[in-house]
């Protein structure tokens, strides 16, 4: 049963999927710091308001995974912002996150070299995201 994207239930499922992944802990052992995803509204795709998602990653462990307000999102070490359609492309691996940053399809506040140094971690969490059975706001399921 697919879960509605970008809801607390979906965040819980995503966190559980990361925790259940046998490789994640080892790959992410050097990552420290929270990441926020800011989803810009696109009413035509059934996303009428901005959505803020906060995820806390720490040396292979995961902490808070919450739908939050703007202030909480802004408090993260890395804040990544993009249109809803772009995030969906990232989730489906139709869009490479690093390439998207360099092309301006996504924006990021934070230390780019740190992200590059830990690119395997970034790719891993995107891989796992793609495995969460998701109902997107513009899906006709």
């Amino acid at each position, binding site marked *: 049963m697919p879960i509605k994207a970008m809801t607390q239930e979906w965040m819980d499922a995503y966190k559980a999927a990361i925790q259940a992944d046998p490789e994640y802990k080892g790959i992410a052992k050097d990552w420290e710091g929270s990441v926020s995803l800011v989803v810009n509204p696109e009413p035509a795709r059934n996303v009428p308001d901005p959505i803020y998602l906060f995820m806390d990653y720490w040396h292979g462990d995961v902490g808070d995974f919450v739908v939050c307000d703007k202030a909480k999102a802004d408090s993260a070490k890395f804040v990544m912002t993009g249109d809803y359609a772009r995030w969906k492309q990232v989730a489906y691996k139709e869009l490479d996150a690093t390439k998207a940053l*360099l*092309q*301006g*399809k996504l*924006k990021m506040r*934070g230390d780019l070299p740190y992200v*590059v*140094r830990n690119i395997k971690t970034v790719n891993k969490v995107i891989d796992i995201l793609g495995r969460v059975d998701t109902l997107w706001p513009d899906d006709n399921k």
Partner: protein
Amino acid sequence: MGYDSDLSFNYFGPTKIVFGTNAVREAEIEMSSLGGTRAVVVTDPGIIKAGLVNDVTASLGSRCAGVFSDVPQDTGVEVVNAGAEFARENGADIVISVGGGSVIDTAKGMCILMTEGGTLRDFNGVQLLSRPQTPHMVIPTTAGTGSEVTNAAVIMDREIGQKRLLVENFNVPRMAILDPKMTEKLPPLLTAGTGMDAMTHAVEAVHCIPHEPLTDGLALHAIRLLYRYLPLCIENGSDLHARGQVQIAATMAGWAFGNAMVGIVHAMAHSIGAVAHVPHGIANGILLPDCMEFNLEDAVDGYAMVAEAMGVREKGMDDTDAARAAIGAMREFTRKIGHPQKFSEMGVSGQDIEKAAELSLSDGSIVNNPRIVMDSAEVLGIFQKNL
């Protein structure tokens, strides 16, 4: 050579180019076309001493808001902040940079602060801006960086001991004036080093993962021009035709790598530059042939095209033979132009390359390389060959 049937890409290159001998004398007219009324000229003491700013300020006349010339060889956050303050105090609404990479990057940082306010430390990230920035006209005095047409700037933050990378599509220079007279007095070593910077941009644009037909076209023609005209510039610096062709090549390579990105050569050159202060272009030139060798299996198609551009693909060669011919020709080319061959010539030690190898893995360029690099020992091996 083919491309995937599901090829998709974005190409971004909004900079207007004005080319010609003495084109800098048009600076005032061109500034007006960008909507500028008072320009701050950004440069460095060497450029002032060489008299290269005179034609620009003469053209601007009373519309020159002032000359900011305190840019060192490796610019820093405090330089950008001071430059922006200078521009604001003097009522400038457009920036004209006259110089090489450090000057151009300083001006890029200033454009952001002149529009957004604050200091450069407020802008830590990628593509953070959401509106066009202060117009920037670039007049390069070297032919290599390609910075006149790219969205990136590298600025040292000495307080934290790290370089800040600005990547902003809203801050690409609006115009570049390429005037061969501006590079006429470059000495042979600097001509070779900056020329190999351009050559490396072109080759890396061909072998990097995001390469596509537009960037390939630009890069391969840049390689043709550099291969033919860079040696002529070394032989006779006053050959303005050759100087101009190399300037055009450097700009084309800038567009190519600005979209297709750069790979392992740049990751390593940035790192050895940070550790041992090896000039960027020279580090690129030393590393390029062995990095091509390293990438060979994953970039055969691209290097075969490079061989064609260099005119070294002979009848009967398959792509692998042609790629090998390109690598050999590139090695020979660096010798022909009198480019340094080993890092030891630049005072680099074994300890330096160990540190630089480690650092290379966290450089943003490494993720675009055609051969995946996960182990610093692989990078160290390339450095050792070139020590």
